[in-house]
């Protein structure tokens, strides 16, 4: 395939870019590993029954219109295709789908690979019944299932959104346990004036919290020392409450959430430089003012820094506009407005510096504990790659997508160094596990098979 523009990721940014690029007459192919367009936030929004769409709230319903516009745009679409290899010079993408692997040689590439949930390694987080909040939300969107009597714990806007959606679906959670340290709300107030330039998101957030409280959900604020108890599966969430008392909430289902961070797999694979951003507590890929990561490669949406769905959609459109040529001032102003509340939210929901205790498993694929990583770091592993080499942390099926940020933070802590010098896993193809048959029948010899550098 030889499109003008290849896009990876069918969330708001990718869809916005595809619609805009087609309107400008570019040929477009969009690759996405899900069966339907929408990404995480609009998952299933194009196909779920109307009733469920309404339960999920107005932001979700908005996705329907964008998905329809995408389908009508005439863009090529490869759903169920994993982009498992990306090369910069010349630009090439290998993606594997039901029919085998296919090579795309685009003139330009847009990464719209979005965010992933920050790992929440607390004791017991690997027990059956413990999920991420995002995972619980996927269940609701995809199959209309809301777990009864769940406990949601952690911090971030998604926690409240999910609680409100579960309440609307008639299965409100038993409790929301927020782990923000006391005083965080006050600290965030300094960023409030900026956020008030576009108060929409804040009003929405307050509305959600009010709805959760009205639904009779217990709310615990200032919780610490989360732990999930259970032998074969989750039985209870335990924590220390704001007054220092130990609490225990019986629950079969626990949803954990500590915010989202850019999904770095693609940008790391392309060897794009990343900078540690303390405000978002995440690595962000280096991008210029025109969304460019490298010649011919652009990034839009949360993958380049968390900005939310509205900003992502507009950034996708901006990326297409930049490629096709045309006026960009209006879109840039729209993006600035959509991101106005970000500094406030980043401050409020900053994950803080607390890291898991030694016993806690961090890499769940390979069952590696925080203690093992600390020991490896003290024994000379100067970065996550050495820890991976020594312990296999990050070598399992998720290829470090889940544990990467936590492994890096543990190494940094144990060595008393900054995140920037600690760095991140070196990502190599395939980005996701592939059946051997796909590799065997791939159009070109398997790239990335050179020996790993020390």
């Amino acid at each position, binding site marked *: 395939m*030889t499109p003008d523009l290849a896009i990876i990721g069918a969330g708001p940014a990718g869809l916005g870019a595809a619609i805009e690029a087609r309107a400008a007459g570019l040929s*477009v192919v969009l690759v996405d590993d899900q069966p339907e367009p929408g990404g995480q936030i609009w998952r299933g929004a194009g196909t779920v029954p109307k009733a469920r769409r309404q339960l999920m709230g107005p932001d979700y319903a908005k996705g329907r219109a964008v998905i329809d516009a995408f389908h009508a745009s005439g863009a090529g679409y490869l759903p169920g295709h994993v982009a498992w290899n990306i090369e910069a010079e010349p630009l090439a993408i290998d993606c594997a789908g039901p029919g085998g692997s296919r090579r795309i040689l*685009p003139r330009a590439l847009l990464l719209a690979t979005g965010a992933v949930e920050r790992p929440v390694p607390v004791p017991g987080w690997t027990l059956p019944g413990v999920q991420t909040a995002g995972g619980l939300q996927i269940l609701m969107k995809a199959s209309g299932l809301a777990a009864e009597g769940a406990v949601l714990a952690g911090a971030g806007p998604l926690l409240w959104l999910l609680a409100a959606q579960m309440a609307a679906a008639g299965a409100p959670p038993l409790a929301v346990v927020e782990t923000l340290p006391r005083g965080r709300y006050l600290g965030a107030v300094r960023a409030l004036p900026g956020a008030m330039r576009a108060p929409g998101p804040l009003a929405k957030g307050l509305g959600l919290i009010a709805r959760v409280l009205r639904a009779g959900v217990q709310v615990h604020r200032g919780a610490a020392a989360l732990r999930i108890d259970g032998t074969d599966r989750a039985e209870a969430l335990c924590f220390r409450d704001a007054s220092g008392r130990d609490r225990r909430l019986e629950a079969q289902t626990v949803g954990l959430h500590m915010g989202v961070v850019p999904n770095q797999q693609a940008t790391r694979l392309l060897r794009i430089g990343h900078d540690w951003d303390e405000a978002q507590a995440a690595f962000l890929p280096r991008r210029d003012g025109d969304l460019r990561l490298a010649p011919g490669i652009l990034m839009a949406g949360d993958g380049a820094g968390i900005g939310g769905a509205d900003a992502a959609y507009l950034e996708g459109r901006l990326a297409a506009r930049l490629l096709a040529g045309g006026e960009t001032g209006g879109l840039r102003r729209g993006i600035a407005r959509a991101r106005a509340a970000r500094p406030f939210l980043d401050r409020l929901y900053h994950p803080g510096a607390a890291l898991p205790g030694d016993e806690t498993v961090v890499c769940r694929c390979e069952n590696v504990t925080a203690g093992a990583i600390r020991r490896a770091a003290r024994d000379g592993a100067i970065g996550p790659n050495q820890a991976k080499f020594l312990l296999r942390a990050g070598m399992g099926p998720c290829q470090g997508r889940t544990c990467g940020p936590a492994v890096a933070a543990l190494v940094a802590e144990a060595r008393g160094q900054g995140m920037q010098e600690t760095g991140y896993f070196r990502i190599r193809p395939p980005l996701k596990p592939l059946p051997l048959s796909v590799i065997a029948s791939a159009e070109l010899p398997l790239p990335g098979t050179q020996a790993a550098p020390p």
Partner: protein
Amino acid sequence: MPGPTPDPVPSAETLPARVDTVVIGGGIIGCCTALELAERGFSVLLCEKGHIGGEQSSRNWGWVRLTHRDPREMELMVESARLWQQLDRRVGAETGYRRCGIAFGFRDEAGRADLEQWLPSLRDYQLPASVASPAELADLFPGMEGGLQGALLNRADGRAEPQKAAPAVARAAQALGATVAAGCAVRSLDISAGRVSGVFTEKGRVACDSVVVAGGAWSRLFLGNAGVELPQLRLRNTVLRTAAVPDGPETTIKHPDFTARRRADGGYTVASVLANRFELTPDSFRLFMKFLPALRNEWRTISFSVGHGFVEAAREPRRWGADQVTPFERCRVLDPDPDRKAIDKVYASLQRAWPAFRGVPVEQYWAGMIDVTPDAVSVISKVEQMPGLVIATGFSGHGFGLGPGAGKLAADLASDARPFTDPANFRLTRFSDGTPIRPISGVARR
């Protein structure tokens, strides 16, 4: 007598060694398929043995109608009409599409009843169809006599310019990187490990993952050589175009004796199903049983003849190798002789009914070969026994209007995308799996 000249399309000198998809046939169907694929980022080679739009796609009446559609085709046509509306903007050129409406006139109660049965299905799709009174007809067609009692009028029906549409679509595909090779017949498919791996053209082999056969009246012959049986016959229809008619009607008229459609140049394309002629060939006998229901349906309007075409067709080879000159190269543009007698009669009755046309000279006569399937519904289908092969052909006299939607569906099939409409109605196997073959709208009943 050559047909009307389609707009020119630049042709590539050299062929790519490999593409994602090869489209065979530069008619409206092949061009729309190529554009869809190019927009979706696939590399495409469009091969046309003659010139783009040289056969049916430039010779047709130029009707883009929703009325008189087989229900199996309705969804495809509704999407096509939507795509026609955006086509000029999409291809950056003028295709002449207008929602001018078509009035299907009737002279008696039987005619009324026959036409009224189409109303419910049109209303199902919220189409603005109604029965127009003689007074309304007088408004639409001032001065027309001809004894009409009324007409089924659908204002969503339209027209486009056949000499412009396929070329404009081909050029737009080219602008998106598709290679258009005119004067380049595809001789045969290259099959390896049971699936399509390329094509042999008269200019050499091109590797590909999929092939779309959109060869119009040639598809049966091409597929037969590959061992794929497609029941398809040719029906000749003759057309004339007039000089400009000052203040002529905007709306297209179908009168039982004639039809007239306004052209962009101010003249009219005049035709009638009465000028249909079925030329008997050896295939007519091979396929006789398959086409019997269709023939029964329409035989009042079709005349049969055995001309020199019979001998020619009998001599035509049906199998050949990749290194042999094929019938596609020997006949670059299928240009049947117009049936002057029949079409002159049609024009005479038009002039009798309508003073505005009296004294308007005929500028050109031509004929075209309509490719017909046993149920008069197209084949837009994968071929089970041959992965990578897609057929988009057999449009049975109404493929011009269906072009954009059919191209979209063919592109869906060729790229393994989820088809936008259920392709089951268009599957090839319906002719061989015992499905009763029911022609509903037919070829000639529009």
